[in-house]
């Protein structure tokens, strides 16, 4: 296995681990939200559900810089793509927020 292959293997495992943890947090929040809504804690259930949905939605965008950072070691072109992608997504979110207000 070459150095590049080893680095990409590390990136894969780190990204998978981070995704697993974030999704677990999101799923727990969604489950808590569902249970809270059923037992009548509607407001608390709504907050937990919303935070859970946001957690799952932004998970790929959070993992992206991790991949970019790890690939940065000797692969600046791909790291540039990863960070630039994150910037474009954030600019889109800010424009949506601005157009809403």
């Amino acid at each position, binding site marked *: 296995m070459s150095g590049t292959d080893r680095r*990409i*293997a590390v*990136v*894969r*495992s780190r*990204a*998978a681990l981070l*995704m*697993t943890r*974030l*999704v677990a947090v999101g*799923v727990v929040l*969604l*489950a808590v*939200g*569902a249970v809270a*809504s059923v037992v009548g804690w509607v407001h608390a259930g*709504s907050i937990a*559900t*919303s935070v*859970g*949905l*946001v957690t*799952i*939605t*932004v*998970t*790929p*965008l959070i993992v*992206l810089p991790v*991949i*970019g950072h790890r*690939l940065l070691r000797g*692969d600046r*072109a*791909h790291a540039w*793509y*990863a960070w*630039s*992608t994150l910037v*474009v*997504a954030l*600019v*889109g*979110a800010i*424009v*949506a*927020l601005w*157009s*809403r207000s």
Partner: protein
Amino acid sequence: MTGIEFAEVLGVGFAAGIVGSLLGVGGGVVLVPGLSLLLGMPFREAVATSLVSVVATSVAGSIVYLRGGLIELPIAVELQFFTVIGAVGGGLMVAMVPEGPLHLAFAALLVYAGLSMMPTRRAESTRQVVRPARRGERSLAATASLGGGLVAGLLGVGGGIIFVPVIHLLLRRSFSVAAATSIYMIGITAGSGALVYLIRGDVVAPVTAVAVLGVLFGSTLAAHARGRIADRPLQVAFALLLFYVAFKMASHSVGNG
């Protein structure tokens, strides 16, 4: 939400998760018709629910595929830059573009992609060979990804129906690698679009939460089974799915026109 509605949304999400993860398309093509046609949800809300669920499909599938080494990270990282530019651009200009012509053009593109995806002996012998993409092929793939992201942003799908043919046909990776890489890419694309819908307040949280749970369960189950399923039947299934979606989009466009 009643118990029956809960079960219906959970079932549609589960089916979308299985289809999306196996075929690398995210499941939006199942979820949007399922929620809007079967359960009577308004189209805009169905699209918002679909986008968040597509992210869930992507994340659940990506975890398994990353560990299995099926995702080509360099390809994904390079192409997703262009898809997100397209998705953000499409999401911001969605109100300015008439849907009818866009649907017809997209339907034609789907038919072409479906025909190209049909497995042939020649394809089996040449397209499975992994080699570095030529400069022209990479530029074409980047342009197609930009278009795929634009379509995803405009129509509220993950874009896997574009990404899989691009990676499989243009960059000449196996269908398994193309589907796995596409699953990872659509999370970024749909995540950008879903953020816009969340910020605008279009996401119905209770329904979306149940759909996401169903999608997560279905896509995780399918991702674990993916390695034991041959490419050929999946390619045929994917092509048939493309033809079906093309027909639905064309008839929708004619109906509106």
